[in-house]
C-alpha cells in the first residue's frame, strides 16, 4: 500500500485544568489516503476540532506523531512549517467569526498568498483573486465589499477561496456547513465535492451531522470523548454499525420521512461524562445499554473486526 497523505500515530492532547488533565484527544490513529475524504463525527466535546487543529499544528499535541507523506511534521522548525502550511489548509466553522471584519474580500483571499509570497506581481495576484472568486462562485462585483455586507453562505465561500489560495493538497473542514441553512448547506457541499473532483483535494471533514458525513466522505471515524471508537468506510458504517455508540448515534438522527418513525424510539440515556481524568475502561460504558463488568476494568483498544472495519468494544 502507498503511504497515506496524512497519518496520525498515538496522538494525544491533554489540557491542564485546575481539576486535572482534560483528555481532549486520547491516542488517536488515523490514515487519510490522497484524494479521499475522511469524515470525523462526534458530539460536542468529543475532541474532533482539537484533532483537526493538531494535525495542522495549530495546537501542539502532548504526545504522538503527525505524518504528512510519511514525514513527521511535529519535528519541523518554523521555516519548514511555513513551507508545508501551503499544502495544509483549514475552513472554519463560523463564517461570521473567521473573517477579519476590517479587510475587504480581495484582501482576505490574497492574504495567504502575500504571507507565503507565492505570487509577488500585483497584477498576477489580482488575477488569481478573481480566478479564486470565480471557482467558489462569488460574483466579481463583490471584490471590494466587507464581510458584514454578505450573508453566511457567501462568507463561507470566501473562507473556502482563502483555503484554496495556495493550491493546498489537504484541507481540514471544521464543520463548514453547520452554521448555514439547509439550502445553502447543499450549495456549499456541492461546491466542496466539485473542487475535490477538479483538484484532487484531500479532506478531513469534521461534523456532528451524520447525514452530511454519509454524503461527502469515503471513510468515517466516530469519536467519543477523545477516542476513536469506530473507523471504517462510510458504506459499511451505515449498513453495519458495530459500536453501541455508533448505533445510538444513527438511531438518534431524525429522518425526514414518516415510514422510519419506529426506528428512532431507541434513545440512549444520560449525557457525556467528564473528560477530566477519565476512569480506565471504555468511556461510553456509563451510557452503554450493553455494558458489562469487563468494560470498566481495562482500556479497550481499537481492533480490526472485519477487513478495514475497526471497532473499540469488548463485544467483539
Amino acid at each position, binding site marked *: 500500500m502507498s503511504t497515506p497523505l496524512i497519518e496520525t500515530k498515538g496522538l494525544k492532547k491533554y489540557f491542564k485544568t485546575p481539576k486535572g488533565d482534560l483528555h481532549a484527544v486520547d491516542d488517536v490513529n488515523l490514515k487519510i489516503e490522497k484524494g479521499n475524504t475522511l469524515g470525523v463525527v462526534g458530539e460536542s466535546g468529543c475532541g474532533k476540532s482539537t484533532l483537526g487543529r493538531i494535525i495542522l499544528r495549530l495546537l501542539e499535541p502532548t504526545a504522538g506523531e503527525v505524518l504528512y507523506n510519511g514525514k513527521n511534521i511535529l519535528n519541523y522548525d518554523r521555516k519548514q512549517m511555513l513551507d508545508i502550511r501551503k499544502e495544509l489548509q483549514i475552513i472554519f466553522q463560523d463564517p461570521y467569526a473567521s473573517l477579519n471584519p476590517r479587510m475587504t474580500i480581495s484582501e482576505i483571499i490574497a492574504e495567504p498568498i502575500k504571507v507565503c509570497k507565492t505570487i509577488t506581481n500585483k497584477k498576477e495576484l489580482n488575477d488569481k483573486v478573481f480566478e479564486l472568486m470565480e471557482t467558489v462562485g462569488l460574483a466579481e462585483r463583490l471584490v471590494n465589499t466587507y464581510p458584514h455586507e454578505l450573508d453566511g453562505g457567501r462568507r463561507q465561500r470566501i473562507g473556502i477561496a482563502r483555503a484554496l489560495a495556495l493550491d493546498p493538497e489537504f484541507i481540514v473542514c471544521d464543520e463548514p456547513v453547520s452554521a448555514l441553512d439547509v439550502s445553502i448547506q447543499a450549495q456549499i457541499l456541492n461546491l466542496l465535492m466539485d473542487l475535490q473532483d477538479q483538484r484532487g483535494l484531500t479532506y478531513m471533514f469534521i461534523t456532528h451531522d451524520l447525514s452530511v458525513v454519509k454524503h461527502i466522505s469515503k471513510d468515517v471515524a466516530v469519536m467519543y470523548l477523545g477516542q476513536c471508537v469506530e473507523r471504517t468506510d462510510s458504506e459499511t458504517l*451505515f449498513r453495519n454499525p458495530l459500536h453501541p455508540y455508533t448505533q445510538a448515534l444513527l438511531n438518534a438522527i431524525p429522518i425526514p420521512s414518516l415510514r422510519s418513525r419506529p426506528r428512532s424510539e431507541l434513545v440512549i440515556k444520560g449525557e457525556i461524562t467528564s473528560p477530566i481524568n477519565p476512569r480506565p475502561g471504555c468511556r461510553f460504558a456509563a451510557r452503554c445499554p450493553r455494558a458489562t463488568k469487563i468494560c470498566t476494568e481495562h482500556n479497550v483498544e481499537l481492533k480490526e473486526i472485519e477487513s478495514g472495519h475497526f471497532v473499540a468494544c469488548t463485544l467483539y
Partner: protein
Amino acid sequence: MSTKTLVEIKDLHVVYNTDEKTVYAVNGLNLTINRGETLGLVGETGAGKTTTALSIMKLLPDRVGEIRQGKILLDNIDITRATPADMRLIRGESVSMIFQDPMTSLNPILTVSDQISEVLDLHRLDMSSEEKIKKVDEILKLVGLSADRKNEYPHQFSGGMKQRVVIAMALACEPKLILADEPTTALDVTIQAQILSMMKELKQRLNTAMIFITHDLGVVAQICDRVAIMYAGEIIEIGTTADIFDNPNHHPYTSGLFGSIPDMTKVAKRLNPIEGLMPDPTDLPNGCKFHPRCPKCMEICEAVNPGDNIDGTHTIKCHLFSQ
C-alpha cells in the same frame, strides 16, 4: 370560531421599522391551531418564523416591531388589542415560550427552583409556599430531572438539562399553547432525541397545543401533526405530516428543501439545492415571492401573488396548482 380551534391568526402583517428601511417580516399570514395539536413551522433563517411566535406572545421589540394589520385570536381574545397588563396575565398562564438557546434563556444568578416558582408566584396567587415547593418538585420530575438538584444554579447543568429546566418553566402553569422556538437546535443529536421523546410524551399527557419552530424536516416528521412551510413571511404550504411527507404534490420551495437534505437511505452523488438566496425583506419581489429562485417560474408568477389552492387538508400557495 369552533370550540376545537385554540388560535386563529388572520391576515397578519408584521414589520420592523428601522431608521432607513422597513423590513417586511410577516406578510398576510393565516393560520389556525387546534387544541392539543402540534404544528411544525418550518423555514430558513429570515422566513418570519420567530416573528410569528413573538407576535403571538406580543414580545416584538418596542417601537421597532409593529403589527400593521391582522388579528390573533387566542380563545377568542384578540391579542393584538390586549394591553400590557392583559398580556402579563396571558403569558405563562395560557401561552408560554421555549427559546432556542437554553444557555442564555435562564437567569444565571437564580437557582433553578427559584426560576420555576417565579411563574407560580405570578399566576398562582392562592398557592401556599409549601404547595409551590411541591409543585416545583413535581414539574422537575416530569421533565426528567432529580428534585435534589433544584437548588443548583444554571451553570451547574449541561445544555440538555438546562433545556429541560426551560421546558419545566414553560409547563409550570400548564398553558394551553407552547411556542417552542428551535428548542433542540443547540443540542447534540443524542440529547435532542431524549428531549424530543420527552416533549412528545408530555404533550400527550397534558394535551397542550404546540407550535414547533424548526428548520429540520427530520424533527418535524417525528413530533408534528401538521406542518406549515414558511417563505418570506408567508405560509406557502400547509398540511398534515402525511400531506407534506408522502404526497407528491408540493410547492417548488418545499421540493427544494427536501432536495437539499442529504438522504441517509439513498446514495446520491449530488444534492439538488435551490439556487440563489432568500429575497431581501426590505425589498420583496412582486408576484410570488419565490419566483426569482423558482425552477418552474411562469409569466403569471412574476405579476400575481398566488392564492391558496386547497385540496382537503393540504393547501399550496402556487400558480402551478390553480385551475
